[in-house]
Structure formats: C-alpha cells, structure tokens
C-alpha cells in the first residue's frame, strides 16, 4: 500500500464559487503531510470532504487503496479518520474522560462505567505521551490540555489517520513544542497525520511532504527536505513574499500613551495588572511580549475603557482617560483591534458595511438626525474593502460568511481608517496566513510612520521581534523588562517571558 489516503481530482462547488477544483492529495502511511494554503484557499473544504461533511461533485477518495464513499463523519470514523478541530468540540462541565467517551461510552449493565473508562483513557494517554488528568473538568484545564483531549478523542475512536486543523493557532510557544513532540510519538506508533496550516516554520520543522493549494487549485506536492520557506510562501501566495518586515528606524517623539501605576483586578479580586507603568511615544511601536494570561488582556481592556481600573492613571496625549467609558475613549483617539474578532470585533450577522461603522454609526455622515444614511455607510464600506483588500462577494455580505483573514482585514481597515492617535493591536494576525500577516504588519508600520503610537500585544515571538521598536515584557501583571529587539534574542526574550531573569528597568525608559 503506497498511500493510506488518496483524494483524486476532487471538485467541490458552492453557489457562486468553486472551492476545490481538481485537487489531488496523497498521504503515505506514517508521514506528516502538510496541507498548505492561504485563508480561504479551500483547505478546510477539502478536509471536510474527507471527513464526510461535504460530498464532492467530482473525484474519488481511496482509503488504504479502496475506493470509499464517505457520506458522513461516522463513515469517516469507521474508516479510522479522525479530526482534531481548530475550535474544540468539548463540553466544559464534563471531565476529560467524559468528553473522550462521549458518543461511544463504556457501559456495564446500562450504566456508564467511569472507572473502566478512566483506565482506558489513561492507557491511551500513556501510550502516546499525552499526559492529561482524566478526572479534571475541561473548564479547569489549559487550552493546550484541551487540545490533547481532542486528540485523545480521535485515538479513543481508533483513528489512525489524524487531521489536525491549524492546531497551533491557539497555543503558546511551549505548548507548540509539546504538540510537535506528541505528533512525533503518534507517527512512531504508526499513525499518519494531515496537518492543515499556513505556518511555514511548522512545516519545515515537522512535516515530511507538503501539498500546496491556492484559490481552490492544487498547486502540487513537494518533499519538505527539498524545499524552503521562501519557495513555499510564493507557491502559496502566488508571488514573492518578504518575511522580514521592511521598516525604517523609528523616529519617536513625545509620549502619547502614559500608564502610571495601573492596577486592574479580576472578578476574584486578584490584581491581574499590578502597579504597571508603560509609555508609548508617538511614532513608535511598542510590543508587549508575554505568555498568555499575564495580564495582557486586562491591560488592553483597561486602556480601551472596557474594564474598570482599580488604581493608577492612563493618559492619552496628556489627557486623563482612566475613567471614561468605551465610547469616550474611542472618541478621544484610540483604535482597538481586539484579540477575539468574533466575540468583540464584529457583529457576525451584520453586513460588512454595517460592521465598518460599528463605532461611528451615530456620527455624520452615517447618521443624520437619528436616521441611518445607508449610502454613506456602504460607500465607506466599499472604499475600505477596496483599500484593505477585503475579499467579499459584496458589502452587503454578512461578516460571518468571510474567511478569518478577510474579517480581520475589515476590522483593521475600520480601526486604522479612524486615524487614531493610539492604535492597540491585540493578536492582530492570529490564525492568518503569510500574505495577510505581511499586509497587517505593513499597516501597523504605516501608522507608526505617520507619527501615531502603536501598542502591539502578541504571543508570537516572531511578530514581536519583527514589528516592534521596543519590547515590553509582561509577567504577572508587571512590565519586568524593556528590551530593544535589535539587541535581544528569542532565547533571552523567552527567559524574560518566563519571569526567570529580571532585568533592571530604568525609570525613564518604561
């Protein structure tokens, strides 16, 4: 058996678009096979065809050499195909074991045999090096652990072909390293893996072969050992891509954002932002580096007026904004690209046009004497769609229908176009492909070059290193170091983020 999975000349259409056109994907047993493509290239569609969620219009699927008709996910499960979804499908209030056995319970005399189930779960987790606590509740474990539960779910169901849908998008660097080890272990135990991703670094690191698709077309399959990130990027995007974001030396001027001894408490009354000081000057990008959960979210929400400040002050261009409500903060000149675009950034059932005026709908020319001016709104939307290259069928399309990258471009267009004095970008490129990342970094730097202040929060080390002019390391709610990206290394930054080496901070610098 040369291939364990063969998808031959697959074609899948949706009204108005061909999502997959004549794509072939052949996976060898025991390999990690990357499926690479931009957002909206058709990766997910192809995998949903394999998983039985969609029926292809043309083409055939062979599993272990036999032609199979995969009409629904149950058939895929029976064939040993398992999917680790990007957005986890877990019941928060259930334990790890309960989640894993859900739908295929171990019973004795009509009752669920949890003891036996826990035993089975710990056996599998030991075998593949996926250590989890079988009795822990999902709500209490980290995102990385939750992902392990997802993997265990597929293994419990006997999958030996695992599809990972952008598994690293939600993970911290440490968790990514652990996941890579787990994948290695899975392969050693005879599994095959299809890895959906647009992160070239990961492909180079763990994959054996890679199939590239672009705009629904299969571009080809390469051996990873015979290619390089540059070649992959240009195959994926269809043009040359620069990784190192080009930028000139920053020319910072006077302070724009000044945060003085800021303390923010969470619902448990714990200070998640703890006596924090930070200054962002006009014409510079300050990157906040840190492991998730060290107060980044709360800091951003406090600046944006979304969270109550317990102590300290926030000044924007020498004006106190600490106690203003969100609207007033927005009006005073802050743009905010939120971390969670679905929860905060967009009203998904509103049209793109309506989303483009989410903060400004009540101002002229979008609103006159309390009435909406639809023409002005959609003219504005059209302009932003054009300028920020938002790929959408029309300005009347619901935001929900757009790919993640295009949703993000829409938000960035909206925030940057308001021309704010301070732009806060929280994880602005999370889950996006290189083309979109390049575009977004460019926009952040453009803002800087126009003399605006930019505050970038990111868990991606590369992003922080590439884009920032200064890096503030946050640990347990405090800025514990301020470093120059040109003089630091990823290793040093990693150590600082772990809070191990505290570098003394000069007062004037923070």
């Amino acid at each position, binding site marked *: 058996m040369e291939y364990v999975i063969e998808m031959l000349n697959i074609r899948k259409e*949706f*009204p108005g678009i061909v999502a997959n056109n004549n794509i072939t994907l052949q996976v060898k047993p025991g390999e990690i096979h990357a499926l690479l493509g931009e957002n909206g290239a058709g990766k997910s569609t192809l995998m949903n065809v394999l998983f039985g969620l969609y029926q292809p219009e043309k083409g055939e699927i062979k599993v272990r050499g036999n032609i199979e008709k995969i009409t629904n996910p149950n058939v895929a499960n029976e064939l040993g195909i398992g999917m680790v979804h990007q957005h986890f499908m877990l019941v928060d209030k259930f334990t790890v074991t309960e989640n894993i056995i859900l739908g295929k319970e171990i019973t004795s005399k009509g009752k669920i045999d949890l003891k036996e189930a826990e035993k089975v779960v710990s056996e599998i987790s030991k075998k593949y090096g996926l250590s989890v606590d079988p009795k822990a509740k999902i709500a209490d474990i980290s995102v990385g652990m939750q992902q392990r539960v997802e993997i265990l779910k597929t293994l419990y169901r006997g999958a030996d072909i695992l599809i990972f849908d952008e598994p690293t998008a939600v993970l911290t660097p440490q968790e990514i390293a652990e996941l890579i080890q787990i994948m290695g272990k899975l392969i050693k135990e005879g599994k095959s893996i299809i890895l959906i991703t647009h992160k070239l670094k990961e492909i180079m690191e763990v994959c054996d072969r890679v199939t590239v698709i672009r705009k629904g077309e299969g571009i080809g399959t390469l051996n990873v050992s015979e290619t390089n990130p540059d070649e992959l990027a240009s195959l994926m995007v269809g043009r040359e891509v620069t990784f190192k974001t080009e930028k000139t030396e920053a020319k910072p001027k006077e302070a724009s954002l000044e945060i003085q001894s800021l303390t923010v408490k969470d619902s448990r009354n714990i200070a998640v932002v703890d006596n924090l000081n930070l200054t962002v000057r006009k014409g510079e990008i300050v990157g906040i580096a840190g492991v998730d959960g060290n107060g980044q979210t709360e800091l951003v929400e406090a600046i*944006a*007026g*979304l969270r109550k400040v317990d102590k300290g002050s926030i000044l924007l261009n020498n004006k106190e904004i600490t106690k203003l*409500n*969100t*609207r*007033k*903060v*927005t*009006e005073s000149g802050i743009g*905010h690209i*939120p971390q969670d675009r679905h*929860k*905060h*950034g*967009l*009203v*998904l*059932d*509103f049209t793109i046009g*309506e989303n483009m005026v*989410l*903060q400004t*709908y*009540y101002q002229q020319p979008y*609103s006159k004497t*309390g*009435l*909406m001016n639809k023409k002005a709104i959609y003219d504005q939307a059209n302009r932003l769609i054009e300028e920020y290259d938002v790929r959408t069928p029309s300005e009347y399309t619901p935001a929900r229908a757009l790919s993640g990258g295009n949703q993000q471009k829409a938000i960035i267009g909206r925030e940057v176009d308001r021309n704010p004095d301070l732009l806060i970008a929280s994880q602005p490129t999370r889950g996006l492909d290189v083309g979109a990342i390049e575009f977004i970094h460019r926009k952040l730097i453009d803002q800087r070059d126009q003399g605006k202040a930019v505050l970038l929060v990111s868990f991606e080390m590369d992003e922080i290193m590439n884009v920032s002019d200064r890096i503030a390391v946050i640990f347990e709610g405090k800025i514990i170091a301020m470093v120059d990206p040109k003089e630091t290394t990823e290793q040093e930054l990693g150590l600082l983020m772990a809070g191990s080496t505290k570098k003394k901070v000069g007062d004037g610098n923070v």
Partner: protein
Amino acid sequence: MEMSNRMQNILIPIIAVLLGIIVGTILMIVTGYDAIAGFIALWNGAFGDVYFFGETVRQIIPYILAGLAVAFAFKTGLFNIGVEGQLIVGWLAAVWVGVAFELPKIIHLPLAVLAAALAGAIWAFIPGFLKAQYRVHEVIVTIMLNYTALHITNYIIRTKLSEGSDSSDPIAETASLRSPLLESLTDYSRMHWGIVIAIIAVIIMWFILEKTTRGFELKAVGLNQHASNYAGMNVKKNIILSMVISGVFAGLAGAMEGLGTFGYAAVKSGFTGVGFDGIAVALLGANSPIGIVLAAILFGSLKVGALNMPLEAGVPNELVDIIIALIVFFVASSYMIRLLIRKINKKGVK
C-alpha cells in the same frame, strides 16, 4: 444548487402552514367529520360575507400589535413573554382615561391610546431593568408579571372603575375607536379604526429597525452584546429600551380591545390569549414586519372563521386551535422542514 437562505425563510412558514392544514384535515377525516365542508365553513366564517370580514379584521388588529411586540424584543435578543400582561394593563389604562375624562375627541382618543402605550411600556420596563441591571432572566419576570397584571387590573376594575361590579362603565364616545362608517360598511361588525393604528405601528417598527441609528444599536446589542460593548454602545440602556418599545406595542394592542372592540374593561377570570398568540404570530412571521401582518391575517381569519364551523359543518371549532398549534409546531421545528427542502433539492438536481 442550494437554495438561498432568504428563499428558505419564506418557504418555511408556507410549508408549515400547509403541513398544519394537511394534518388538520387528516384529523377531521379520522374523527369522522367532513373535512371539505369544514374548510368551506371556515372560509365562509372568515370571508363569506362582509360581516365576517369585518370581524376578521377586528381580530387581526390586536394580533398585529401583539406580534410586533414579541418580534421587536426578539429582534433585539430578548424574549418578551409578558406581552399578555402588558396588553392587559394597556387595556385598563386606555379604558380608565376613556371613562374618567370629558374632553374633545381630538384630545381624548389620542390620550387614551397614549395611556395604554405608556402602561405597557412601564410594565415592560420592569423586566428590562431587572435584566440590564441584575441579569435576571426576562422570561421569568415577564411570566410572573402577567399574573400580577391580571390580578391588579381585576382589583382596579372592581374597586376604582366600578362599585364592586365585574365591569367598568363604557368609555366616553370621545375616546372610542369605533366607527359607524366601518360598522355600517361591514353589516354592523365590530371593525374599528384600530386597523389604521396597527398599520402605522407596522411601519414604525420597520422604520425604527431599518432606518434609525437607534435601531442599529438595538439590533447590534441583540446580536452580540460583547461587540456592542466594545463599540461603545450602552448595552444596558438598549436592553431596557428594547423592552419598553416592545411594551408600547403590547399596550397598544390592549387599547384596541379597550377602545375599539369592547369599549369597556371587565374582570377577567383568565388571560385573553392575544399576547400569547402574538408569540405564534411573530414566530410564523419570522419577526419581519410584513411577515407579521401576513401571519396575523392568517391567525385572525382562522380564529374568526372557526366560529362558523360548528354551525355550518358540525365541525368543532377547537379543531382550528389544533391547526394553529400544528402550524406553530411546524414552524418551531423548521429544522425538519429545512432538511426536507434539502432532500427535495438534491433529488431535483440529480
């Protein structure tokens, strides 16, 4: 080809109505009634002559307003089960103003209508405030307020609007919505000017939601509170406002009964049912103004037409309640119908 969502949204209520009628027909046949005669009687009872037509319109008026009330709250993310209670207090307020004052019609009638709207608004403000301020679920509060409304209004009718009797005095002519013209045109049915108010209300709802900045905010808050908050909208204020506007429509529905159909307020042993039927109207009408008008016409005709069924065909009029229940059931289980449409579509293509 998959059918567009919009098309499906129109098709589902139509199929639900057809399925409801089909199952109702089967029921009639199984229980030994003449189904064809039953439906003819139903039609005649709703549109057979001008009197029935007038009565049907009269029934449609409060249905439209109650449907708007439910739909407005729905559109903004709230489930107002309290339309019934808001309607009852609206009814009482309208009649109270109608009985208590002597004013020229041009002032008296609008005042009575406004009193009803205000009463409904206040009654809906309570659950809106509790939801916004303390996160108390509006469904629970509104259900309880329905009973509160029922018993308080009964008490007021007995003690303030009459001297211990079961009904208030009739309202002054100057506060009445009744129309000798419409009555004479429809063979002395109880059709009244409220239909004009109902149509204006439909236009107002559409206008608020589609045209105004306020409507944009209300919808945004209904669809995603987090994003609305992020965008600087006052989420609490909008929740309260949404309930209040919903209550205005419900109160107006009460005014229709108090100033139009009946002309007085009587002690009620139970709910009028109009407020609850409003939920069915909004559901079948998919919360769209035009859909609500059509659904109200359907339910209004069924309700009034049903009264003729025992007389003309010997079919019990409760059967219509069953058909209405079936329609609501099929709309609520629209997932089933969507599946059906998809299956039919697939076969059609192959």
